[in-house]
C-alpha cells in the first residue's frame, strides 16, 4: 500500500514472521540476531501489494532500567508479494526504551533514529520515531492497548530529495491473551501524514484484528 491522491478502501492481510536468536554478552549487554519476513496483500488493489525480507543484529545495553540499542539491518523490498525486487537497503538504527509500571498500567516509550542507505536513491532518508506503548490490564486475560506514534522522515536523494513527511497516528484496541504466548488484538487506528509534497499527504482509518504467537 502507498499513498497518492486516488486512495480507495480495501481489505488486506499482513503475515509477519520473525526468527530470533537472543543471548547475553555480559549481565547488562545482550544481543539479538534475527530474520523477518512480512508482506501486505490487498483483496482488490493488487498494485498495493508489497513485501520485505530483512536480516539484522542488535546490541542492547541495560542501564538503570533504560535499554540503549544499536541495530544494523540488511533488507530487500519487493513490489508485489515477493514478486519483483524493488530495492535493497542497509539500515543503521539507534534506540532508547524502557517500561514503566503504574498499578495495572504499563507504559513503554521508545525513541528510534534510523538512516537508510539504499541502491534506490528515493529510499535514502533519515527517520525518527517516538512511540508510547500503553497497556491497561483489566484482568489476567483482557487488556486495553494503545500505541500513539509520531514519525518524521527527511529524504536525502533522488526524486525525494528535500521531501519531509510527518506521520501522526494513534490506535486503541482490546487484547485477549489466550496464553502467555498467544494474543488476539482488535484495533481501530487513525493515521495522518503531513508532507511538503502535496500528493503524499493522506488520512487513513484502519480497523481489524491481529493475532500474535511466540514460540
Amino acid at each position, binding site marked *: *500500500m*502507498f499513498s497518492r491522491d486516488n486512495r480507495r478502501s480495501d481489505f488486506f492481510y499482513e503475515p*509477519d514472521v*520473525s*526468527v530470533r536468536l537472543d543471548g547475553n554478552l555480559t549481565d547488562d549487554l545482550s544481543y539479538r540476531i534475527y530474520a523477518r519476513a512480512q508482506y501486505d496483500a490487498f483483496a482488490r488493489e493488487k498494485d498495493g501489494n508489497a513485501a520485505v525480507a530483512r536480516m539484522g543484529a542488535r546490541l542492547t545495553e541495560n542501564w538503570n532500567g533504560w535499554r540503549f540499542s544499536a541495530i544494523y539491518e540488511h533488507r530487500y523490498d519487493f513490489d508485489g508479494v515477493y514478486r519483483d525486487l524493488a530495492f535493497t537497503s542497509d539500515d543503521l538504527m539507534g534506540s532508547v526504551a524502557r517500561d514503566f509500571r503504574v498499578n495495572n498500567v504499563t507504559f513503554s516509550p521508545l525513541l528510534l533514529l534510523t538512516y537508510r542507505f539504499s541502491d*534506490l536513491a528515493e529510499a535514502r532518508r533519515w527517520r525518527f520515531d517516538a512511540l508510547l506503548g500503553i497497556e491497561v490490564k483489566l484482568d489476567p486475560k483482557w487488556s486495553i492497548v494503545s500505541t500513539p506514534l509520531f514519525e518524521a522522515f527527511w*529524504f536525502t536523494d533522488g526524486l525525494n530529495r528535500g521531501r519531509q513527511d510527518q506521520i501522526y497516528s494513534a490506535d486503541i484496541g482490546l487484547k485477549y491473551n489466550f496464553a502467555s504466548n498467544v494474543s488476539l488484538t482488535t484495533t481501530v487506528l487513525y493515521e495522518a501524514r503531513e508532507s511538503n509534497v502535496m500528493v503524499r499527504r493522506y488520512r487513513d482509518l484502519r480497523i481489524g484484528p*491481529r*493475532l*500474535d504467537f511466540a514460540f
Partner: protein
Amino acid sequence: MTLRRVSVLIGIIVSLTAASAAADPRDSADRSQRLDTNALRDDAGTQRLRVPSHPLVIAPPQQAAPNAKKGKKQKSSTSGAMSR
C-alpha cells in the same frame, strides 16, 4: 557469552484500509514505509509475549555454589521433603 533463547514470532493482521495505485520509484519507498511502521507497532505489541520453554531453549549455566552452602542446601531440602 550465553545463548538465552531462540524464538519465533508470528503476527497476522487482517484489516480494512485505503490503498491506491501508480508507478513511480517513490511509491516503492512509500510502501516500504508502511510495512516498517506496522513492524514497529507489532514490536510494541508483541514485546510482552512470553516464549514458552521448549527443547531449543538453552538454559544459562548454573553458578557453582560453594561446597559448604551446597551441603546446607541439601540438608534443608531433605528436611522439607520429610516434613510433608
